[in-house]
């Protein structure tokens, strides 16, 4: 593979595309459910639907194909903000995102890029 091809590859492709998303969601969701700081936001939900949402989240964080707007993120999390969702919870999710990708041996520089994309949704998620 030449240098020019390598740089034209998207983050999503570099991390491994859909297969990487599928590998990441189960690991990530287990971490979230086991974390007493945030699992109440994920309890009492249809777990299969949650997995579908986590896939959307990872696809977005990997810079993959998605049409989510800032307003969508606000609407989707408004119920959780009412339940008390705040910056510390967002930090906890970011922590699990990083740990999940580390566990999957994703290179640190790519993890940093994914984390930056996820971080960019902070204000919308928290309704700020």
């Amino acid at each position, binding site marked *: 593979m030449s240098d020019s091809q390598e740089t034209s590859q998207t983050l999503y492709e570099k991390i491994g595309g859909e297969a990487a998303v599928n590998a990441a969601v189960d690991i990530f969701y287990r971490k979230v459910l086991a974390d007493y700081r945030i699992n109440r936001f994920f309890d009492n939900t249809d777990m299969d639907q949650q*997995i579908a949402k986590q896939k*959307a989240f990872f696809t977005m964080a990997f810079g993959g194909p998605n*049409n989510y707007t800032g307003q969508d993120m606000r609407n989707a999390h408004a119920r959780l903000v009412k339940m008390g969702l705040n910056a510390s919870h967002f930090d906890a999710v970011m922590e699990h995102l990083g740990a999940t990708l580390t566990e999957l041996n994703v290179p640190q520089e790519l993890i940093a890029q994914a984390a930056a994309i996820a971080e960019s949704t902070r204000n919308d998620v928290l309704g700020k």
Partner: protein
Amino acid sequence: MRSITIGESTFSCQPDETVLETLLRGNMQVPNGCRQGLCQACLMRSLDNSPPVSAQVGLKDTLQKQNYFLACVCHPEQDMTVALPNQQGASIEAGVIKKQLLTPDIVQLILEYQSPFNFFAGQFVNLKRPDGLTRSYSIANIPLAKNILEFHIRRLPNGQFSSWVYDELEVGAQLTISEAQGSCHYLPGRAEQPLMLVGTGSGLAPLHGIIADALAQDHSGPIHLFHGSRDLNGLYFVDEMRELAEKFDNFHYTPCISGEGIESDHVQGRAHDIALSSTETLNGWRVFLCGHPEMVNQTKKMAFMKGASMSDIYVDAFHVIQAEK
């Protein structure tokens, strides 16, 4: 140009249009969300042809097999007839050919049908009696040459339908049955995978069918069944399951009694606790959970935390319809 038929209406799918876009343009009410094949809000089923594989990405394998797809990412390759998940297909008539008590609380009902009828063992149907009262029950047998369906019906206190089955339904009577529904069933393909099946009470019915199906399709991995009940009246087919375990080396059966102070040679404890503590990890396992909704939901989460992939967990929660006053 492809045409999309839903119910009585048919629409032309424009080039580059998805099935969802076509239906919405035709003012059909179709639930939808992300429109990128992720949230699964626009799930629907193709009633004639197999949908494009690309429109089935991310769906549970049993739903893929039943031709479910996501309308928002479906560019039809041929004409399609589709239905929303809650849209009922055609019903057929079936006659009672056998009724017998399995325990004082559970009755076995065997129906025979004449019209063509397709199902996977473990799916459920709606049984409707002549006055219209309808309840869902799981099919306990595998599709055979004989056109029969077996059900295990537990008598519920004040249960309108179950009491009627117990007290009044007679051999020779006719019932209406819906098409088979549900995604809790066996699929061949990963024959060496270990299977764990946990059921409470008449939750054994779908599991009984799923086990028969797995064995008939030469499943080679270990199959562990845990059947639980509070008391002995909810435990049935004990001899039959033990015989099956004698016959198949890879089938293992553990009957469990959770009530206190009951003398029996069964394992003491709740079936899902016994099942989950029987193995270090469920990583790589396929898990089937049927019966009491609380047991099913709790165990689903615990099985996932113990390493089972969410896509490998199949559940059927038996919700009880409260009797109308």
